[in-house]
């Protein structure tokens, strides 16, 4: 365990069981929620909580490649999303209907996502213990 504060056995046992889904719903540059969701992902990973991300609705646009945030004098979140894999967070989902709407294919995305149909989304969500949807 990385965290020294989690020394009680009961807490460790709980830790093992809980998996977390973070839902990203906003496009780039909209507000701080995408960046702040990402930071939750890193924090949970540091506590060995298994984290998955669902890029729902306009959230898929956060993953579009060839972004040049420097033109807007904004930090490039793309690099931070790419860093997820270094924290062993590699479970990413996008919705096929969202990809179609914006004419995005896997080749246009910065992360290697599982593309699921909208009617499978509810079943996916059910498999998680905790969902955070900022």
């Amino acid at each position, binding site marked *: 365990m990385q965290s020294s504060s989690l020394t009680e056995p009961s807490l460790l046992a709980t830790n093992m069981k809980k998996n977390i889904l973070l839902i990203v719903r906003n496009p780039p540059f909209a507000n701080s929620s995408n960046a*702040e969701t990402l930071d939750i992902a890193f924090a949970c990973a*540091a506590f060995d909580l298994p984290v998955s991300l669902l890029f729902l609705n306009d959230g898929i646009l956060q993953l579009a490649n060839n972004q040049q945030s420097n033109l807007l004098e904004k930090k490039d979140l793309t690099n931070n999303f790419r860093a997820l894999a270094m924290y062993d967070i590699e479970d990413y989902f996008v919705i096929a209907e969202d990809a179609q709407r914006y004419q995005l294919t896997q080749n246009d995305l910065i992360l290697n996502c599982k593309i699921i149909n909208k009617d499978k989304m509810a079943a996916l969500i059910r498999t998680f213990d905790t969902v955070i949807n900022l």
Partner: protein
Amino acid sequence: MIFSLLIYASQNSGQAEHSALRFTRSALQQGHSIHRVFFYGEAVSACSAFKVTPRDEVNITEQWLKLAQDNDLDLVVCIAAAVRRGVLDQAEAKRHQKGAANLSDGFELSGLGQLADAIIVSDRTITFGN
């Protein structure tokens, strides 16, 4: 049951923080425990001692502090979200060479690890946003 709350809302643009306060009160009244209340995003502005509430409006920060005192609540404010929005405790004010600290007594600045810990320890982590 053990609850934690994640508050992700601006108190000036909605009702979420008030909803969270009511939820906390009600849960405590029913004998549940509140492991932590975590203020994130724009909600960190709720924790500034420099706010001046008009006389005909309710100061919700004072209500949190009262509830926290009476029930030994852990009110944690995300340090990264707070500092970038100008909510600083003494240590951060010194570190960033700002003239004053404005975090209300009774709130604590800490990292997102406190949210991860809350998720682990609590039976339910409920988000209040707007």
